[in-house]
């Protein structure tokens, strides 16, 4: 997108002068560097030792260690040096690392189950939302539906409700249905939130596919459903993928519902990360390690989505 635009304006008289460009460039780069510093700091903290992470003044140069990651994935107990000396020699590098701190690994932490929950709930709700959303968007795009505008507004308005307010009746309902703290309950809830985005975005994408394609297919003896499957869907595939990534990011990042409606079984990463604690408070290197692992997929998705980002964040209102 940007490359094409750059080309189209390259020789117009409204192009900025080289000096204006340099000034603009330096200011933007300055802002970008400042804005990315917090993230860089977190990624760096993940490689600090416990004492380096809480050192004063804050340490910029430090000896990197994987302690944070080891602490994130394990539960440890403190032991006396005598006890540790009597143990058989450490089997793995992380055993060794933990023993240097007078600790012994007692078992795996809960981070893996929480990560798995995030994955299952994220992908489950994304799949359902995109599936339902594609059907509904196709219908809204191609058929005459009575009160279509009102229905579309209704679908969007469900997204406008404050999550804490939505959680109150959901909490009561899920208690009755035994869905509290279950993956199924969270998948259904996230699907309901995501489907509104999916319908609006996908309607935009399907609107852009010329109707003539399907009409030609219908003339050739396709049924509607066959035309949808073999003509429309292949053309909408980029739009569907972009929508799916947006839904996945929402479910992945969601915190309010997760913290209010789950406590263990179905807890996802966002409510879990702030409560990674070590001896005497938050274990910052482990928290930073969890944050880093949690954020990496988002960074990749942002780069992938760059072209469709604008559309996604405005519910398809702005298409460029």
């Amino acid at each position, binding site marked *: 997108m*940007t490359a094409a*635009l*750059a080309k189209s*304006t390259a020789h117009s008289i*409204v192009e*900025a002068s080289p000096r204006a460009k340099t000034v603009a*460039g330096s*200011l*933007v780069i300055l*802002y*970008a560097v400042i804005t990315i510093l*917090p*993230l860089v700091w977190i990624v760096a903290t993940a490689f600090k030792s416990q004492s380096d*992470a*809480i*050192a*004063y003044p804050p340490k910029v140069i430090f000896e990197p260690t994987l302690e944070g990651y080891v602490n994130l994935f394990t539960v440890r107990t403190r032991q006396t040096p005598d006890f540790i000396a009597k143990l058989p020699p450490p089997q793995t590098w992380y055993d060794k690392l933990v023993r240097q701190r007078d600790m012994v690994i007692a078992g795996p932490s809960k981070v893996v189950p929480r990560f798995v929950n995030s994955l299952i709930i994220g992908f489950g709700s994304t799949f359902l939302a995109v599936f*339902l959303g594609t*059907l*509904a968007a*196709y219908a809204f795009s191609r*058929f005459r539906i009575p009160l279509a505008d009102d*229905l579309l*507004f209704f*679908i*969007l*308005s469900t997204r*406008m409700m404050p*999550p*804490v307010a*939505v*959680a*109150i*009746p959901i909490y*009561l*309902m899920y208690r009755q249905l035994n869905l509290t703290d279950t993956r199924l309950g969270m998948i*259904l809830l996230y*699907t309901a939130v995501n*489907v509104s985005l999916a319908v609006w975005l996908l309607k935009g994408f399907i609107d852009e596919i010329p109707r*003539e*394609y399907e009409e*030609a297919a219908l003339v*050739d003896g396709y*049924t509607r459903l066959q035309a949808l499957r*073999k003509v429309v869907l292949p053309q909408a595939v980029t739009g569907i993928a972009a929508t799916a990534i947006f839904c996945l*990011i929402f479910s*992945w*990042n969601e*915190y309010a519902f997760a913290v*209010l409606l789950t406590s263990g079984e179905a807890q996802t990463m*966002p409510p879990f990360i*702030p409560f990674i604690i070590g001896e005497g408070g938050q274990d910052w290197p482990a928290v930073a390690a969890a944050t880093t692992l949690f954020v990496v997929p*988002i*960074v990749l998705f942002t780069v992938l989505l*760059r072209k469709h980002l*604008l559309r996604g*964040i*405005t519910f398809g209102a*702005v298409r*460029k």
Partner: protein
Amino acid sequence: MDKMTTILQPDDATFPGMSEPAKSRTARPVRGLSDRTIAWLFVAPTIALLLAINIFPLVWMIRLSFTSLNLSMSYLPLRFVGLDNFTDILTDEDVWIRLQTTAQFVIWSVAFQVAIGFGLALLINRQFRGHSFWTTIILLPMMLSPAVVGNFWTLLLQPQIGPFNYLISLFTGVPPSSFSMTGQVSLAPWTIVLVDTWMWAPYVMLICLAGLRSIPDYIYEAAEVDRASAWRQFWSITLPMTVPFLMLAVLFRAIENFKMFDMVNLLTSGGPGSTTELVSITLKRAAFEKWRTGYSSALAIILFVTVFGAANIYVKALNKVKQR
């Protein structure tokens, strides 16, 4: 064009599955479905899901808002109290203070986001080398989980060990442990504005950028011919033509920030005292800590109505932008 020809020649081998229709025509009754039926079959599941997960609970909540239900004392029989909850809320000075806190947060954060976002968009629009890469970097904060953001900013803002206070002290000479961004009554409201702006200024930037790019070059060329100054061009071309986009961004951000819960809950959890207690946090405390379900249902409904009003304005603005 290629695709067109493939479709017009269904016997083409490049179109797999073409032999299927003949089979399925007899095997599946689907063939006979009218467009009308398909339309309803396609829309119904989405509507059904939203009715089950959004509307049914909402109706239930409206009913509860007229009761004195308290979940920590749910053995008590359900008692209907009429509009008592609503009058309690609307005459409660604390609730009005929370609403004011929320309004101030919304106004200041959106104002900063618009200023920074629009400024950045103007700069990026000059198409300097590498602008695409730097734009992507700037966009990253808004893609993150607000909860994770709130959490790691508490580390960055720690008075002793956090790099933020340290940097401030490097530039101003104020001792880093002499102030606490999240623990001080005078600073905490600005801290949530700061973090929210850090996170969402790129959002406004991205939408403004689309606005700036929608202005055709020939308008500027005409202005050049008329020897309009750069300042004049900005006020009479750039700004008016970007305003609809800017409005869209403002409305989106205003609605989102009115609902704000996650980031602030982790950064300050409403404190110190209740200086950053946004109305969503009040609601969470009433509903999930004091378990005053009847009362909190009423408060939730008041918030719904408010957001709904805003949503209506938003849809009108959205249509305006679309018409362009």
